[in-house]
């Protein structure tokens, strides 16, 4: 049997984390191929149903990323991301999907942090194994 390769949906905000990912690219920082980025203008656009949908459709993990608190391009909209994501992460625990959904802040200058964030999350999901929701 082939080794389990996690399939991960990643949400990036246009101004910080997407730019951080771009910078990781410019610096040729190598990281695993498991993530698929969906760009949104602000991490606060990510409504919880997107995360549920991704899990239901076969994602083994969902990583939501945005600007650091205080750096938000939309004043403090990412504070709402934080509040929503805390609830989602709690709900995941209840559903037995602990560790599969995570929020991280990555700034536009943090290419190395982008790489680390992705690498660590991929390993975390690899350790957890395939999502129980994944339709085989």
């Amino acid at each position, binding site marked *: 049997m082939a080794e389990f390769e996690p399939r991960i949906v990643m949400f990036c905000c246009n101004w910080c984390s*997407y730019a951080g990912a771009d910078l990781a690219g410019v610096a*040729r920082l190598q990281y695993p191929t498991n993530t698929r980025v969906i760009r949104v203008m602000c991490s606060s656009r990510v409504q919880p149903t997107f995360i549920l949908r991704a899990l239901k459709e076969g994602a083994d993990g969902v990583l939501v990323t945005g600007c650091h608190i205080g750096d938000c391009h939309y004043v403090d909209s990412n504070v709402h991301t934080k509040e929503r994501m805390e609830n989602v992460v709690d709900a995941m625990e209840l559903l037995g999907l602990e560790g599969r959904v995570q929020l991280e802040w990555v700034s536009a200058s943090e290419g190395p942090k982008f790489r680390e964030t992705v690498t660590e999350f991929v390993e975390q999901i690899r350790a957890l194994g395939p999502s129980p929701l994944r339709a085989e």
Partner: protein
Amino acid sequence: MAELVGAVAIAGGGIAGIQSSLDLADSGLKVYLIESSPSIGGVMAQLDKTFPTLDCSMCTLSPKLAEVARHPNIELLPYSEIKSISGAAGNFDVTVTRKATYVDPDKCTACELCLAKCPSKVLDEYNEGTSKRKAIYLPFPQAVPRVMVIDAEHCIYLTKGKCGNCKKVCENDAIDYEMKDRDEVIKVGSVILSTGFKPYDPTPLEQYHYEHPDVVTSIEFERLLSASGPSEGHVQLADGTTPKKIAWLQCIGSRNPEIGRPNCSAVCCMYATKEAMVAMEHDNELETAIFNIDVRAFGKGFEQFYQRAKNEKEVRFIRSRPSGVDIDPVTNQLSLRYEVEGSTETACEEFDMIVLSIGLTPSDSSKKLAEIAGVEMDEYGNVATAIDAPMTTSVPGIFACGTIVAPKDIPDTVADASGAASKAHSILASERGTLVTERTYPPEKDVTAEEPRIGVVVCDCGINIASVVDVPAVVEYVKTLPHVVHAYEQTYACSTDSLDIIKEKIEEHDLNRVVVASCTPRTHEPLFQDTCRGAGLNPYLFELANIREHCAWVHQKEPEKATEKAKEVIRMSVARVALLDPLYTQKLDFNHAGLVIGGGVTGMTAALDIAEKGFTTYLIEREHELGGLLRTFTRLQDGRTTSEILDPMIAAVKSNPNITVHTGTTLDEVEGAMGSFKGKLSNGEEIEFGSAIIATGANEFVPEGYFGYGSENVITQSTLEVKLEEGTVDAKNVVMIQCAGGRNDERPYCSRVCCTTAVKNAIRLKEDDPERNIYVLYRDIRTYGVWEELYTRARELGVLFMRYTEDDEPIVGNGTVTITDKLLNDTKFEIATDLTVLSAPLVAPDGVEDTATLFKVPIDSNKFFLEAHIKLRPVDFATDGVFLAGCAQAPKLVDESISQASAAASRACTILAKDQLETSGVMAVVDEDVCIGCGRCTEVCAYSAPTLKEVEVVTEEITYVTRKSEINPAICKGCGSCAAECPTGAITSRHFTTKQISAVIDAFAYADGRIEEVA
């Protein structure tokens, strides 16, 4: 008189030039931005974080760089210098030398193929020589313009006629070794000088041993700290190990008359504090020490930042100026010897790294430029300006801003830059829109009723993508995706000829959607969108799939997996583009009047600056007379009386036909938003305006309960000023006490102006009667920037300065003041005094909360108004159309208030100058039928774009009134937070709709390539 030209030449593409350019271009004037280096961005592009918020510098700067690059009214002239200026205000001929870059900017796609092949390595200026670059290079990853340049001095072909590798590998034939410098004449109505500063070179100060590899300058240290720097932000010593102890030495090349650099550089205390804090965040074992004369934490939020560094982070602030750096001849270990404050002892301490906090000096190019422009300079090599006209040079029509005028930090520079833009705009107001060219496009095809017909271009990006991703295989796969009618491979999708091919393909295959799979949308999306428009497609029917930065470049060793990822990324983009809707901007008529609240020097300047541009202006002052805080003072630092600047200003305001002044009046009610404010005044009058500036100023604190205030012969600085002017100071021994009621728990901020005011008045007292004894009791003397000269002067005149600390304050007795002098071994002095003058801080006036509520704008804990961004938007509120200036934002000197006033006017006029307000296509809209009026959208929106309105619902059975959300398209920024919050899905976040994002998620899932329409 020569014809006015509606264009402005701006020399210097740092943050100052960028801000001036954007303000003027947004106001409808043509801008030529001339930058001597290959990219705009200036020193700010090199910084890691910015004080006092520790925001990432590049994150806040790079959107501005991109904005300049694509602004239709800005023509960027990189790698260019002004050779001569002739003509007069309103009509100048500026000759610009365009230096040869040896790379055709129209052909170069910055694919970087040439970089790999260039054999010549050169010290990288961007990293301050801490790393190497090639002779052909891009200055830094976010550089604008994004084209390569050849460093002729180090290019092997250009110097020796050999090599030619870059020309051989360039697939776009962009290299042109025959390129020559050429002169170009541009016609403009005004010139702005903003060429900034040069960091002081510490090499001549041999005692600091800059040649030691672990003695670095502060700007080098910025690069070491930066994640994009030579060591990815891990500060390392020359031997590769991590430093455990770092010291900063302040005032290197500043406050040092012996080397002809007497002034304070204004920013070093704060950047050193920032660098120490960030370094400690990277490594919590690190010990830091900052050796200083005074800690000059005078700006907004600086004192609190300093206290946090000192008390929470345990950065050691050592009040001593070591005479040099010692190096152990055997071990090469660095150490510092310094006097221990409050004792006669000398300490010696070892450090692993020493950072020299180098000052800001006028750059050679700035001096040369000032000579070319013929503007007067001051004795320090700065462009000379006056307190009441801080951006105006000696040559009419030529303005200056930023650090070419005096050392200053980023927000002051940005305010200055907007202020200079205001001045240039004022003289050219009649020419707005005359030199601006609107691009024309063919009529747009209506595709709404059509099935998606998608074309996909997969870019090789030379070998950037193609060397990792199997592009032909990807193209074959893409052809199998639903709705894709055409897919092809392209070497460089972004080159000019490739863009023409995209247009041809749109016509040939009748495409109604386009995907380009190449690089990041953050740089190239506008280019491809423009191409789509050129072929009659709505620009929002386009999607970029990022298979370079997010795929080929980061998976270089896994070509198979990268190819699979590229396929999936494109599949997701195809799913998205199929569901994208054409979007349109809306143009709305609006009210072009401006409102200014506050009739002090700030408010009056702002009103005049708006009125000069031809707009109706209302000026509201609650007192019965104009003049504000400055009325209570009598002299400026330059020796002029305050009435010398106030009287003509008041006369100009009163006689300006565009200004309506309401004194003794308050603004009591405001409704509406940018473009359509309605206000009600206390006299019952109603006014309408499109934009507002809050300039409500500050008052001198009444230091009740501090240092015997209230008893006879204890007065404040403003009272002293009046007495000085009247000639009624009857005192031989005068003691001034700084921070009287400031920098404490109640008012934890530094009031910025008091040290300069005290020193100014000490000089006046001494000049009035040289026999007088003057003592200034202080905690830190903060005569920042050029006002250091007053401090020097006061000491030369014999004014005595004695330092006290917050926990050992002077005691004011009957005819005496007792102080323990910290600088003289904690010696206790009893000073006989017949006049005690308290330097009390400036405080926010009563009623600021009401003004804040009227416009829904924030105030900080000290009741000063809170700007949108402390660095780059110093006079903007987050709320569109509302601005702030002067002491309402924080205490500041008169020239700084005037600079901000002009800046706020400039910002307001970028709105008022438009014919119509244009909304963005990407924004949120409400479906009233689904909205339940819960109001959650109004709670999450940072801009108050959604509001609840009462709506009458008529059904067959019943008619009732309910609440529905309504989003103001003029305010919405399109972040989508409201759509995520809406419990019923009534809000659609256009271009990022739930349907579109869901389709992308589904496309992620279906590994077999099946894409289903999402209901």
